[in-house]
């Protein structure tokens, strides 16, 4: 216990990315808004770059009461709830607009409460963007991916996704991906434009296929115990500030995505391939077994709601 300071409520917001990323900016905006509105009543501290805990441990630290807010990527929740695996399903959402419709709709909002049994509360979704395939060879149809080694985040769905097209999923730490790509120890990755640009993956990947095949989003979470203990007016203000910060972060994310995509195309070191409706249909066909495989855990109604969100 801190013997010297006695602030009423301290909120530690821990994340694993730099401060100039959409998520980093959203965290800082939240801190700003809270200070503006509640003054010294609540002290928000932001810890970027895994300074406090990495993505794997931050949820545990949150349950212990040592971190109040975090925003891990959606795949990190697979051991806490099976339902959020919906966001890893490949070729389910057509574009970011569909994702937004689903997340803001009743089913998406209900998924925010899917962690409650494990003591966590979702506060909202922060975008990073749609994922695309990058590789040493051009990939247009599912058969092009066969036999290639792709780096994935730890996630059963993502492993199944590559296995569905006879590709080889490899779990590797994000920090080692560049070297492994450069040396061709792995053939490709799946990442949103922002990661491909900021980690310079495009410099070592001659082809990027704009597949929009999956989503890399974050969920802002807090501990249920902490959330319920907050005084009502603080909780209301905090939720409002968080909603605004998330909206701002998502705005930044969209701009960043567009900007980074253009920078990659302009760099000329990599060729960006677009796929048409016909090719996309082939991928959807190849991936349908993956949806089926996880349907029981996720819920057929949830998957249907996501598919419905593709129609504006």
């Amino acid at each position, binding site marked *: 216990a801190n013997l010297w300071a006695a602030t009423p409520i301290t909120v530690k917001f821990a994340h694993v990315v730099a401060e100039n990323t959409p998520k980093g900016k959203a965290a800082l905006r939240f801190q700003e808004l809270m200070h503006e509105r509640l003054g010294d009543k609540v002290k928000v501290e932001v810890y970027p770059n895994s300074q406090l805990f990495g993505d794997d441990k931050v949820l545990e630290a949150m*349950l*212990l009461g040592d971190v109040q807010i975090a925003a891990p990527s959606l795949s990190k929740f697979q051991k*806490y709830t099976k339902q959020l695996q919906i966001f890893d399903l490949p070729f389910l959402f057509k574009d970011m607009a569909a994702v937004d419709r689903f997340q803001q709709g009743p089913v998406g909002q209900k998924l925010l409460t899917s962690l409650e049994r*494990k003591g966590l509360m979702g506060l909202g979704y922060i975008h990073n963007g749609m994922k695309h395939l990058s590789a040493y060879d051009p990939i247009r149809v599912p058969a092009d991916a066969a036999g290639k080694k792709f780096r994935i985040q730890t996630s059963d769905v993502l492993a199944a996704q590559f296995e569905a097209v006879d590709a080889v*999923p*490899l779990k590797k730490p994000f920090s080692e991906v560049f070297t492994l790509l450069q040396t061709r120890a792995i053939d490709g990755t799946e990442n949103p434009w922002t990661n491909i640009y900021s980690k310079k993956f495009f410099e070592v990947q001659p082809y990027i296929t704009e597949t929009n095949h999956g989503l890399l989003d974050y969920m802002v979470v807090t501990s249920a115990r902490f959330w319920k203990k907050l005084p009502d007016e603080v909780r209301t203000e905090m939720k409002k500030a968080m909603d605004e910060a998330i909206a701002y972060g998502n705005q930044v994310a969209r701009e960043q995505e567009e900007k980074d995509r253009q920078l990659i195309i302009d760099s000329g070191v990599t060729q960006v391939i677009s796929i048409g409706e016909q090719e996309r249909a082939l991928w959807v066909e190849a991936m349908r077994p993956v949806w089926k495989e996880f349907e029981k855990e996720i819920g057929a109604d949830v998957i249907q709601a996501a598919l419905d969100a593709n129609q504006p």
Partner: protein
Amino acid sequence: MGLRLIHRLEENILAILLVFMTFLVFAEVVMRFVFNAGIAWAQEVTLYTAAWFVLFGASYGVKVGAHIGVDVVVKLLPAPLRRWVTLTALAICLVYCALFLLGAYDYISLMYDIGIEMEDVALPKWVALMILPIGFMLLVVRFLELAWKVWRGETEGFHLADEGEESMQLAQELKAEQASAISQTVAADATKDAQEPKS
């Protein structure tokens, strides 16, 4: 006899953990290049093995004097004072262990309550974390043992590892070898001299 068996067992477990990690990472490389495949659970298992290796080994390190430290200052102290300083240091080490045991208890209780599994292995996480209390309990045992010996005057302090001293072993082996080689050559020369008729 029993003690020696435990010592040997401790060493074997540590050696096996290290060798297992090495082979597992090597196997991953081979799988990737020769069979164009991955081992999904390899990374997580390697990392947890490393944690078990270190936490299980920390107390062994105290026993065999593998930890490094600075003893130039304590060595300047008169013997009776040095004994008390060492006992105080050992008490601090025990406090350190106690704090971690308390922390580990809370942490593991929480993990037990929420009951989540490891990412790639069908094992509850709290089981994988049990090495925390095990490792720190073993440390407590070793520190108490050491404190008893210091108290009785059988030993003077922590046996801190000395890379210099270990390197000297290598030098001594080489010297011994050379000495025997030289004496052999001398002997050979002598016999040659004796056999060859002098002109």
